[in-house]
């Protein structure tokens, strides 16, 4: 059965996709890196190989420093809160609650809409205007007597990205919950029963037995949320447009490439984004697919 005869048709069927992906994924990554090592500007201009100069230049670029800070703040808040909320909601719904399906559907609903829609809507909610022009959530807080919650949202100096993380959490924590819930449901009832017989408390069962069992789910969630946060782009554009205070590498890359035609710098930023994602996605893919083989 292992003859080439058997494999020929299989390869033939697979090859169109393989060739296209080889070019559009790996080939383009290669081309992008190649461009990042030159001084290419604009479409047809001559370009010279300049080694890693672009990479070094960005390390000294104040705008890139803002980007790194913003991505860090956003990622920590977004991933942390989504995980915490997702796991909390999953455990809650796992308590044989009535109308579980209803709650679950509403929590997951934001996943169906785009980051652009989410951004447009939250821009309206997170209006930073003060005084008589106060609106959105600030107005709600003010009316409810929760004045201490009134804030500048994404205009808050240094920490503005925390306000961007809020709609991102709104959109993705339901998804995180669904991941954890699927994990919790895959733990056999006998395991819980046995622990109960041994006198473990409900909380103890989760903490010491179930959570360690669903660690792979948590890892998946971190990888998925992480790669979303490292390339966050449309959400910020929809909420705040292009402001330097809320800049991230993906926006810088877009502007410098398509507005300023600095292809070399754009390609360098893109490579930095790719590296930041690849350092945790590649080991993840390697270990997950290896386990699959069994």
């Amino acid at each position, binding site marked *: 059965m292992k003859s080439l005869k058997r494999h020929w048709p299989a390869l033939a069927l697979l090859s169109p996709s393989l060739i296209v992906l080889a070019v559009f994924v790996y080939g383009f990554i290669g081309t992008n890196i190649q461009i990042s090592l030159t001084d290419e500007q604009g479409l047809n201009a001559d370009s010279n190989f300049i080694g890693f100069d672009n990479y070094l230049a960005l390390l000294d670029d104040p705008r890139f420093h803002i980007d790194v800070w913003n991505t860090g703040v956003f990622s920590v808040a977004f991933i942390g809160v989504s995980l915490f909320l997702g796991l909390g909601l999953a455990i809650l719904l796992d308590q044989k609650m009535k109308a579980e399906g209803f*709650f679950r559907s509403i929590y997951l609903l934001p996943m169906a809409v785009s980051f652009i829609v989410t951004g447009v809507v939250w821009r309206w909610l997170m209006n930073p205007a003060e005084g008589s022009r106060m609106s959105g959530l600030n107005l709600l807080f003010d009316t409810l007597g929760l004045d201490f919650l009134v804030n500048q949202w994404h205009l808050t100096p240094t920490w503005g990205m925390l306000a961007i993380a809020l709609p991102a959490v709104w959109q993705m924590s339901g998804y995180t919950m669904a991941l954890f819930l699927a994990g919790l449901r895959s733990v056999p009832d006998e395991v819980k029963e046995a622990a109960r017989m041994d006198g473990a408390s409900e909380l103890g069962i989760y903490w010491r037995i179930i959570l360690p069992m669903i660690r792979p789910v948590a890892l998946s969630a971190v990888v998925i949320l992480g790669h979303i946060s490292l390339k966050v782009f449309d959400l910020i554009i929809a909420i705040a447009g292009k402001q330097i205070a809320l800049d991230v590498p993906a926006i810088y890359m877009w502007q410098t490439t398509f507005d300023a035609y600095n292809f070399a710098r754009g390609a360098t930023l893109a490579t930095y984004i790719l590296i930041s994602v690849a350092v945790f996605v590649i080991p993840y893919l390697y270990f997950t697919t290896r386990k699959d083989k069994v």
Partner: protein
Amino acid sequence: MSLEMVRERKKPVTPGLVVGKTIQYGLLFFFLAFFLIPIYVVLVTSLKPLDQVSLQRMWEFPAAIDIANYVLAWEKLGPSIGNSFLLVIPGALLAALLGSLNGYVLSKWKFRGSDLIFTLILFGMFIPYQAILIPLVQTVRELGLYGGIPGLILVHVIYGLPIMTLIFRNYYLAVPDELVEAALMDGSGIFKTYWQIIFPISIPAFIVGIIWEFTSIWNDFLFAVVLTGPDSWPVTVALNNIAGSQIVQWNVQMAAAVLASLPTIIVYIFLGKYFLRGMLAGSLKG
């Protein structure tokens, strides 16, 4: 039903249990509000007539329901919603079909190195698209497809292949190999076997795959904003432009946001089970 059976099934109701349950439901309702508040504000704002839109009263119910905003929003967004459908329908069908063929080969026709190839395909799912954007734009331009919908369809089909391959491969792993072997014994070739045996039992995977692609192509912004022009803008780009301009009123913006998300929300409401399955497949645990 005897009394003992009832007693056996129900836990004794203690005060502690009541308090616990109350707190649990309290939390569930609190987060229900968190997820619903934006939706409430969008709907309420979008239904208010122009003269009723004031910042101070944005949380109030509309005094009278007015769909004029929707008419205005439709005038601005209608063509791009049409574009989105022209984009999404062929894109989702093609990506799913190709993903199904790939999944079939990678699950039922494994060869040396096929698992490595599968991993290499999967990586395409996780790359930040910025990393291929510049060569992509150049290539689409050279193919003469820049600025139009066909080019964007092509791009979405290609970058949809990894997740589609994953969804179908996992689905076919659960299909017994004997089915394929029996067909081969009868003299069917690889493609005939696919077409007569595998394809007809793939409907659930197709629903999952097509819903996934429908949603992600509909919601995409990055490829669309880089590869299309005003005539071919899909709905996300058009909505962002409406919202970015200072002239469009909030209530029209909110009506536009509703229109822009209606198709995917309808899919979610009616086919939620399949939608969820696709999302979970995205975590590789499908």
